[in-house]
């Protein structure tokens, strides 16, 4: 069984950015197909946050959808083809995407491609992070919301960023109230960003809503502390926390031991750029927006003509950015096809994107990753769990020949396992760069080759001409 499909615009990813892009492009008259890996459209955001997301009313702009179902209904009304359970795993010719539907492989041809592949969680290792009982916020959220399973025992949240609050809220709703939330940043550090809050009233009220809800449940939030170690016999039993300075460096003498059964720890998100890189888009390293991001023009077209990037993959910024930027990319892609898009609509979309990006960047700055957290990765700490590679092995390989992450990968096998380097990639780059004291640009990133996700040999074999 093979799949063949032709369309004007292929959107990869059915999250807020992808759906908003599809809606805008279809509205301009394009034939649009949205390809998404999961059974239900909506992406990680709507899957995990839709019922939580309680902006009091639909915001001022008509197309500022904050609830997935409304956006989805509009997308369907606009005649967009939704193609769920469709994994995009490669691209071998310009304008084509190799896909997998179940075990059926095939090809989608499109005149334009909009990459809306979202983001995944940033993992920063520390001694004991591989113990059972240590989880990521996204993992906990999926467990609670999709499988209606609450993590066991005493739950502690750690790391940094607003997503911790969303997970706390889900846990409270599920009757698994967290014992405490440890946020690495401090409100005092936020103050210098305060003036930039002006005007973003809907987002402020949203944040206050979360804060109130968590306070009402009696969950304390402690600031300026990071987990430096997790301990336990075969399973997580306790974590050691320390106060840290503005750079995330632990302050000696501030150790504190917390008994815990489940530690939910995360340091924000990383753009999921594998497809954009495979398509040949030029990337640059922008720590503020999560790391490597594809470059694009003001209509979201990447360095590769007719390939657009939008939402989290173009830089972490949250759902409002994704919605605004998706619309802009959709209009831009439609215009690229020669369809009529009013200049006013284009200008409006550009303005809306800039406004939302400003707030996104503000949140990113407030919860900026403190570099010191990487210092907690001890020499014996596993960095690549798939291939069981320690930080020591990575540090040693980094100094051998010219500090290149693909050399480090070749020597240590880090990133060669089932997750294809998604979990360890950022850490390997960071450790390599730090060990030799050079920039992330200089050490590079893991080479991206198909398949972007594991695919069955039999499915690939079916594509061969007998």
């Amino acid at each position, binding site marked *: 069984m093979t799949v063949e499909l032709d369309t004007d615009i292929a959107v990869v990813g059915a999250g807020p950015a992808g759906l908003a892009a599809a809606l805008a492009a279809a509205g301009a008259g394009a034939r649009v197909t949205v390809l998404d890996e999961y059974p239900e459209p909506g992406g990680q955001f709507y899957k995990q946050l839709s019922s939580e997301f309680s902006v009091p009313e639909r915001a001022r702009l008509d197309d500022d959808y904050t609830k997935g179902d409304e956006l989805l209904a509009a997308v369907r009304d606009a005649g967009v083809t939704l193609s769920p359970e469709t994994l995009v795993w490669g691209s071998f010719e310009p304008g084509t995407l190799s896909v997998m539907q179940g075990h059926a492989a095939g090809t989608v041809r499109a005149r334009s491609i909009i990459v809306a592949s979202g983001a995944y969680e940033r993992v920063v290792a520390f001694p004991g992070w591989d113990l059972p009982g240590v989880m990521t916020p996204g993992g906990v959220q999926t467990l609670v919301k999709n499988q209606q399973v609450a993590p066991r025992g005493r739950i502690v949240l750690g790391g940094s960023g607003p997503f911790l609050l969303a997970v706390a809220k889900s846990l409270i709703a599920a009757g698994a109230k967290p014992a405490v939330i440890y946020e690495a940043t401090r409100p005092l550090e936020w103050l210098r960003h305060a003036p930039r809050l002006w005007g973003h009233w809907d987002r402020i009220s949203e944040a206050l809503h979360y804060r109130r809800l968590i306070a009402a449940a009696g969950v304390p939030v402690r600031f300026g502390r990071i987990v430096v170690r997790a301990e336990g016999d075969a399973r997580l039993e306790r974590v050691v926390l320390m106060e840290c300075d503005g750079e995330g460096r632990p302050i000696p003498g501030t150790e504190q031991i917390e008994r815990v059964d489940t530690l939910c720890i995360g340091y924000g998100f990383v753009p999921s750029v594998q497809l954009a890189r495979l398509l040949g888009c030029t990337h640059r390293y922008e720590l503020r927006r999560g790391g490597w991001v594809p470059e694009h023009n003001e209509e979201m077209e990447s360095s590769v003509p007719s390939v657009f990037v939008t939402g989290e993959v173009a830089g972490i910024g949250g759902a409002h950015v994704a919605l605004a930027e998706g619309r802009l990319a959709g209009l831009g892609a439609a215009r690229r096809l020669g369809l009529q898009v009013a200049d006013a609509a284009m200008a409006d979309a550009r303005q809306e994107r800039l406004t939302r990006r400003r707030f996104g960047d503000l949140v990113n700055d407030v919860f900026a990753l403190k570099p010191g957290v990487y210092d907690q990765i001890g020499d014996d700490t596993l960095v690549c769990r798939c291939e069981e590679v320690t930080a020591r092995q990575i540090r040693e390989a980094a100094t051998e020949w010219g500090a290149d992450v693909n050399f480090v990968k070749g*020597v240590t096998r880090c990133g060669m396992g089932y997750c294809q380097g998604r979990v360890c990639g950022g850490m390997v780059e960071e450790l390599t760069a730090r060990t030799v004291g050079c920039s992330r640009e200089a050490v590079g990133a893991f080479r991206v080759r198909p398949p972007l996700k594991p695919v069955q040999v039999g499915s690939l074999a079916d594509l061969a001409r007998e």
Partner: protein
Amino acid sequence: MVGCAIAYYLAKRGIRVTVIERSIVGSGASSANSGAIALATKKPGIALELAMASQRLYPGLTTELGSNVDYVVEGNLIVAETEVEAAHLEALVADQQAAGVPVQPVSAARCRELNPLIEGRVLGGIHCPTDAQVDPFKVTRAYANAARNAGAEILVRTGVETIEVVGGRVRGVRTRRGAVRAQWVINAAGAHAPEIGRMVGVTHEVLPRRGQIIVLEATEGMPTIRVSGAGQLLAKHGAAAAGGANVAPSYTSKPLNGTVLLGSSNEFAGYDTRNTLPVMAEICRRARNLMPRLGGLHALRCWAGLRPYSASGPLLGGAGGPDGYATAIGHGGDGMALAPITGLYLAEYVAREGRNCSLPDFLGVLKTASPGESGGRPT
């Protein structure tokens, strides 16, 4: 890999040597192959002689270089799927046995016994129990590190721009980062060898031949014996295939990390190192035909590398052009297998100023030398 091996054996003799690498150590074909150290795939002649000499060096390499190269003897099975292939193998095995390779013809039933994944149609095969494999990246790195420890200098991310020739003799090279003075310039640029040759006005008949490989998920209990289809040898031993890709079933188990490699293909596609869908699909189809159970495993990643193809085999030593210019190129798909012997020979060649050390003589002397004297002067 070849360059690092040469540097190691030169440095070991106390000769000052600098390796100039355009990218990083092991970034070319050295990190894009399956690490086969095989005799069963070689046609008798100089290629087999070299391979036999090189294979004698490999078991001691981890000790010699002071760093594990993951040398594993897992045996090699080449199967015939057609009458033509069977006839080719029959002739090959006789010649190989005459040359002293411990290879045996085996029945179809024995093939299935040697690697139980084989459930597709085979007519028979040849089996060489001493064939081995290494981790190609580790070998390259081990040679690089050992060369540096022995006093060699390796300049990474440094491309050669010109070769300086004065009075008919090389005087060094000019790189993006400055000049390196030298009495000898050895071209070990793999598939890019012709580019270096042009700098001294020499044409090298070396073509980039692309090989694509697919890596499968780590799976427990995979049979370790290497299996390939004889179709690959037909292409390899015949004349250069004109266009198109040669894809035969090819299975390499990596017992130390549990993965399986499928491929590689053999294609002439210029310097394009991308993977292509038709070839990936064909590699999988051929593997599934021979070993149906592989169809249920997942492909994790793939890569493609450029083998330096030379119709006349490896071009080692003097190659025309100015005095002091030598080559270590044209290894085709055997660069990993032949790198140690190549390094040893080029070091000898340079030490003797290129005089009185023909390759056959060198190999003849090596053969009579006691084993274990792997890195020493053979005379």
